[in-house]
């Protein structure tokens, strides 16, 4: 069917992202924020956003190509700019971690306020193991260790519900930070240096030509995000995804129809922590160091905010919200401490206008 509206939509998003990443002055940044705040509701009112997204859904294969081309063009345009590429790569790694949180909270209803701690487990794994093992393996071990550390929490989480389960994860997040801070083998408050990533002989820290070396991490981040995306989407559109939804919505009905609530909560929690661990391991190799202060409760809150802002359970929403939550405060640097105020107000306003998040999840379509 007609691909044109989808094409225009992607082009518009790409152009906006270009302008936003490019904007230097505060005036330009605030102007762009205002443009989106006014423009998006107007486009929505005319039904153009719906038209564009339907057009992409009806042409999935072509849509994927268009999105890939738009991403490649953006990366190409910013290939020499350290700051923009660092931002994009951070968004990508956070997207992977938050996709994990989406499986936990969005699907199975297991809220996790210790997301940053699981990122941290991955990060510290990188710090310890990157000098000794191939880095693909380090990423996998980072994920597995995060899943393993998470299993400490499984019993208390299964025995509690709702706010009480949330409180357990809050406590764990704080505990993790204290633990690494007082542990000298893990560098104490100063943290540890992390070796740059090198995949199959490709050293990501040595720039290609005039490119920023962060461009390498963007490419690796894109590959990782694509993989995480495919896995999460497949999980959602399967009987497992249905079981997770059922567990979130009604545990009594689950029991009566043979659904083992504990089994699926454990699966979702482990699966999600694995993603956070892998993302944390990759992120640490990019930034080159880990310290307790990078894994605070506030960082966990940002991760939960990302999945709520994006639209709970929607993978595309996670990517969009990660971009907003991470790039916006950096772009508002000149406002200094007031930037967090503005940013918080913006998040509140978005959620007031769209309580279901930016892109609410739709009902499951399995294969479509």
């Amino acid at each position, binding site marked *: 069917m007609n691909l044109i509206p989808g094409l225009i939509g992607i082009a518009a998003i790409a152009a906006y992202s270009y302008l936003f990443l490019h904007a230097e002055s505060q005036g330009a940044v605030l102007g762009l924020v205002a443009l989106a705040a006014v423009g998006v509701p107007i486009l929505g009112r005319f039904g153009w956003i719906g038209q564009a997204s339907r057009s992409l859904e009806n042409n999935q294969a072509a849509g994927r190509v268009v999105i890939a081309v738009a991403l490649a063009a953006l990366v190409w345009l910013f290939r020499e700019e350290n700051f923009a590429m660092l931002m994009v790569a951070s968004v990508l790694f956070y997207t992977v971690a938050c996709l994990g949180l989406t499986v936990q909270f969005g699907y199975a209803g297991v809220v996790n306020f210790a997301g940053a701690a699981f990122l941290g487990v991955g990060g510290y794994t990188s710090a310890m193991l990157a000098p000794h093992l191939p880095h693909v393996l380090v990423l996998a071990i980072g994920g597995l260790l995060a899943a393993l550390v998470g299993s400490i929490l499984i019993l208390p989480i299964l025995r509690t519900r709702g706010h009480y389960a949330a409180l357990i994860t809050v406590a764990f997040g704080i505990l993790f930070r204290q633990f690494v801070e007082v542990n000298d083998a893990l560098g104490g408050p100063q943290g540890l240096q992390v070796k740059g990533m090198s995949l199959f002989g490709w050293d990501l820290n040595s720039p290609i030509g005039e490119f920023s070396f962060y461009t390498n991490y963007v490419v690796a981040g894109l590959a990782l995000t694509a993989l995480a995306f495919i896995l999460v989407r497949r999980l959602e559109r399967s009987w497992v995804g249905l079981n997770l939804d059922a567990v979130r919505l009604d545990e009594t009905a689950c029991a009566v129809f043979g659904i083992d609530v504990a089994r699926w909560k454990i699966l979702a929690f482990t699966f999600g922590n694995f993603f956070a661990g892998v993302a944390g391991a990759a992120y640490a190799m990019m930034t080159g160091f880990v310290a307790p202060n990078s894994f605070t409760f506030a960082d966990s809150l940002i991760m939960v905010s990302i999945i709520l802002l994006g639209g709970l359970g929607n993978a595309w929403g996670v990517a969009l919200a990660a971009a907003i939550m991470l790039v916006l405060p950096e772009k508002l640097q000149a406002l200094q401490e007031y930037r967090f105020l503005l940013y918080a107000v913006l998040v509140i306003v978005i959620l007031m206008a769209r309580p279901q998040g930016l892109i609410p999840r739709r*009902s499951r379509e399995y294969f479509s």
Partner: protein
Amino acid sequence: MILKCAGLTVRFGGLVALDRLDLVLAQGEILGLIGPNGSGKTTFFNALTGLYRAAGSAAFMEHELTAMKPQRIYGAGITRTFQRSRLALPLSVFDNIMIGNHRLLHHGLWFNLFRRNALRAELQANIEKARALVATFSKPLVERLFDPVAGLSMIDRRRIEICRALVSEPRLLLLDEPSAGMTHEETRELMDDILLVRERLAGLSIVIIEHEMNVIERVSSRCAVLNYGRKIAEGSYAEVSASREVQTAYLGTD
């Protein structure tokens, strides 16, 4: 004999919600369970499905239900509906019915993530199955198989709940007030549809809790009456409705 309860008792602290209930159910039989509010009817269902711990015995075929978890009781072939609908409202009609089909689906992580062609085949077969089942109850509802349940009317939700209970082809179906919130006409239609499905599922036994006496009179071959957790009468509808004790339980004494 498919179900045999002997001395089945449920206590909540000092309150005896179900008091030494003896009850048998033959294969293929439809038993009506009646009694005033709070007489222990739903408690009986909750005990049979493992949601409440019960003392005494409830033998279902070769299983002893009082010692089993709800998940295993479902696996043995008992399903139910709830008095107040417990559907997953944001999920589609199909998803809700498939929750009831859990026993017959593959749930391995590897299968679901990586054997997509096999999953697709299983999915197709189950869409056909759900379609056929829903069509028995309502033709227009088939067209809305992938719509969220939240947007459907009360009677459609009731139908979906019954489909969810029937899709795994149980041996015993427990219906908890299927007529609640529906008109006489809708209830009659729903009962006809249930009887239709029952003819296809050879040997399905049903226990139905109902306040609509004409429903009980029409569908059940035998009735049991509960009051304050105890069985006060049992027999054909004509017999129990003539019983002095039953009339007292419902209307009080003068």
